[in-house]
Structures are given as C-alpha cells and as structure tokens.
C-alpha cells in the first residue's frame, strides 16, 4: 500500500509554497512513497520512554551581555534584495483583490 498519495503530495507542495507542475507531482509522489516506506522503519524501535534528542550539544540558555552590537549597514543588507523601495524590501501584494 502506498504511504502517500498524489493528493497528499499536492497538499504538501502547497504547504511548502512550491508551485509544482503536474509532471513533478507524478514523479515526486512515487519517489516520496519509496522514501517514506524506508524511513518508516524508525517505528520498529521500542522507544516509548526514551527522551528525544533535538541537539547533541547539551547547552541551554547561552547568554551574553545586553549591549548594542554593530550591525550591517542598511544599504549592504538591501543590496541583495530582488526589489527595494524607500529603503525597504518591496513585496508583491499580500491581500487578494477581493479582501
């Protein structure tokens, strides 16, 4: 049985903001199914009472003095942007016309 359907892959692509083509969907659905069936083997491990590891460095709350540090000049930061207006990143419209 397939672990993931074409419709589910289309939903994932939407969540991930990937405007995939129909052709890509066909390819990815099959490939992701193979990968998911392989990685699902983690479920064979009895680990109910095992704590998860998110990070191998046992550090918490790394603190520094709350002092203002120099940061990059605005023009350097904006230099790589696809579109700039009035010293800011310009973005396409955020709301739909009807909203």
């Amino acid at each position, binding site marked *: 049985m397939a672990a*993931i359907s074409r419709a*589910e*892959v289309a939903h*994932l*692509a*939407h*969540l*991930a*903001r*990937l*405007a*995939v*083509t129909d052709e*890509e969907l066909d*390819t*990815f659905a099959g*490939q*992701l199914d*193979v*990968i*998911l069936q*392989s*990685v*699902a*083997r*983690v*479920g*064979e*491990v009895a*680990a109910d009472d*095992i*704590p*998860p*590891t*998110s*990070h*191998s*460095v046992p*550090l918490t709350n*790394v603190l*520094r003095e709350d002092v203002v540090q120099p940061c*990059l000049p605005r023009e*350097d*930061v904006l*230099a*790589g*942007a*696809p*579109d700039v207006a009035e010293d800011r*990143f310009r*973005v*396409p*419209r*955020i*709301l*739909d016309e009807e909203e």
Partner: protein
Amino acid sequence: MTEQGNRAAGPDADLTRWSAAELGRAIGAGEVSAEEVTRAHLDRIAAVEARVHASLHVDGEGALAAARSVDSRRAAGQAVGPLGGVPVAVKDVLVTRGIPTTCGSRILENWLPPYDATVVERLRDAGLVMLGKTNMDEFAMGSSTEYSAFGPSYNPWDLSRIPGGSGGGSAAAVAGCEAPLAIGTDTGGSIRQPGAVTGTVGAKPTYGGTSRYGLIAFSSSLDTPGPVARTVEDAALLHAVIGGPDPRDSTSIPAPVPDVVAAARQGASGDLTGVRLGLVKEFAGEGAEPGVSAAVRDAIEALTKLGAEVVEVSCPHFRYALPAYYLIAPSECSSNLARFDGVRYGLRVGDDGTRSLEEVMSLTRDRGFGPEVKRRIMLGTYALSAGYYDAYYGQAQKVRTLISRDFAAAFAAADVLVAPTTPFVAFPFGARTSDPYQMYLADLYTIPSNLYGGPAISVPCGLSEGLPVGLQVMAPTMADDRMYRVAAALESTVGLFTPPEL
C-alpha cells in the same frame, strides 16, 4: 613514507604537489613567496578546471592580493603562521563578503553576501589565501554533486565518475591539486564520503567545535564545517585554524579544540600501542562492496601491526540511523529553507504586478529549487505535520538518543570506532539519480556520527578496482585528537594515494 608520500610532501618543482604544511613552512622561511604559490595554483586551475569543474567561482585577483599581503607582512618581519600564504578553496555553502555564494542553487545565483562566515574570517586571519568557492550538491543535499544546479564536478581519478557529495567540489579540487586545502561541511557525510571516493582526507569535527555562523543552514542540529586535505597533518592544521568557540553561534562548544596537530604528528610516528579500535558488529556485512570491505580489513590489519588492538562492539540502533537521519535532516531543512521566499535575497519569479506574494513565493521556490531540495522540503513538511509528527520526527529524535547511547557504550570498550567511510567506490554519473533512496545509501556509515555529534575522519586506506577507499575513524565528542592520531598512523603505513595525471 611511500614514494607517492614523498612527492606530495615536496620538495617538487611543481608547487601544487606540495602539502600545505610544507608550503606554509617554505613561505614562512622565505624560500618561496605566497604569490608564487598562489599563481601556481591559479595556473593549475586554468589548466584542469574545464575537465574537473571543482569550482563555482574562482577569485584570482582577490587571491593574489591576499598572497601579496602575506608576503609584505613577512617581509616586514611579522610572523605569518603555519598556514600563512597557503591557498584554500571554500565550499559554496559558506558566505563570503562580496564574493558570489550560491549554495549550488539557482535561487541564490548572482547573490553577493554582505558578510563573511566565521570560518572564512578565521581563514583570512590566519593568512590563508582563498582561491574561490567550490561546487556542491544544491544546499548540501546529495552524495555526488549531480544535484548542483550548475553541473557536477568530476572525480580526478576517473572523470566519468562522481567525486562524492555534497562537498565533491572541495574534494575534487584537493585531489586534482587545484588547492592543497579546502573547507567542506558535513551534515550526513558531505566531507567524509567525498574524501573517501577521491583519495583525500576529510574530517568532520565534533558538532559545535567549528562555527556555523555564516553557514547557509540545511540541518542546524547536524551541519558541521571541517577540513579537506591530502594529508592528515594538513587536515589537522586547517582544523586548528577554523575551530574553537564562536560567540555568534549559540551551539558553539565553549572549550578549545583538542590539540589535533600534535595528535596527527604523534600518530605519524606509527605507534598505536594500547589504542583500542572498535569494530561495529552491526556494520559487518551491511551493504559494503567486497572491494571496499577488503581494503578496510587490510587497513585494520595494518593498524594492529602498529600496536592497536581490535575489540568488537555492538551498536544495535545504528541500523536505524539512516531512516532517522532522513526524517530529522529533511524536517530541519523544510524549516530552514523557508527563508528562501524571494523577498530579502536571491531569485524572484513572476512578480508581474498581478500575482500575490504567495503566488510569487511559490513560483520562485519551484523554479529556484532543484528536485532533491524539493523532495526533502516536502518530506520534512510531511514528517513535521500534525498527525505524523509523533510517528516520524518525534520517533526519529528518540532513535537519535538511542544511537548516542550506543556510541557511549561502545566508547567504554574502545577508544575509536573504525568502519568503511562509504559502502561503494566512486560510481559513474547517473547510477543513483533515478532512485533517490539509492543515493541516500552512500551515507550509511557516516550518519551515525552526525546524529551523535562526535567527530569522524575519512583517511585513504587502499584501492578497489583502481579507485580509492576510505577508512572512517570515529571518536567521542571533543576527542577529535584521537581520530587524527589513528588516521595519521594509518597514513604513515599505507602512504598517500595520488590520482593519475589529468
């Protein structure tokens, strides 16, 4: 040392054959100038790069200026350090101020970063001369460089074969004598596996032992910058330059890197008396080609002749490392790569005034990312989504704990663990691209150390079918020195492996 070893350590008329240690010594002594050394490498790049394609950008002018600066400092009586004036190539995943940084992706094509990564800053501070940026699988996802948006790199041992990945460009540059040193990054094996298949030395330091500041994030809990070189001593010298605490990386370990250079020199004396080598029982017979297994067996035999003893250790959860990794890394990637939204840097597609931000973002990401990156983003999105989180990402994190416990138990019985670096020698282009999971198997033996966080090195140990095989030496967290000692001891007995003339 073997004949090949002597040649690589210089003196040789061709400066590109010298080791970094020898170049640094000769530059420091005024026997050769940094500019001469840099020119020799730029000439080599000009001669072979069309066939090897190790680089995405060569900064000839910048390199010559940096070299001249080292020469004038030396002429003024200032000390220039053991690697002062020595050229280095840097994987294109590390940001370099004013120098194109693409991460192997169309989405960052033509982007000029506004700052330097900590690793790059430390290279400059130590007087190393950056030649340029090396090719890689897009966003460091892959084992062959075939997923680079700008075409693959070619293995100097056989140009019809892959140089490994993701850091195949760094490994190919070093193997092909375009640079004596390179920087790589290792998330699941991206330094070690290219090292193994190109006959070079590649080390993944302890996670947190080298700074991630300025490393374009793929999987933040795993990404680790490290050295690529032709000798173990050179790798240790470079490791010492780039390692150590960095206040700009909150996961940086607040302790100095162990003395890896001294350990490499100690190992080169060829005495491993009392060193316990752990053989992981569960790795035996799991997936390695016969020629790889044979070369690794011979290398372990050679190490026992130097005084090391072999103990068998059991790491029952290592067989789940690959599946756990391919849930954890894609999950982190799906989150990290959300920053490529066509707003602050890089590509923007379809912004014609009629489309919404979301439409432009989705078009940009679909056009800007290649297929492997998209697969991993979707896989991670799936593993993190409601209803699947506990069974996939959560469970993988628990398996990660068990793998770390396996390492802890193994290191109670052994000082280091030894294994093949990768199950197969360099494969022909196209052999593993149609089934993505076949590509993932290249990381079978390298991934456990990433999940655990400990250091691991790949050192050339022999040939199979005329192609290099790497021995992997894994050590406990913050015991990076141990792996250098064992790797250098092996190198002292098997020698260096030099590809045929290009």
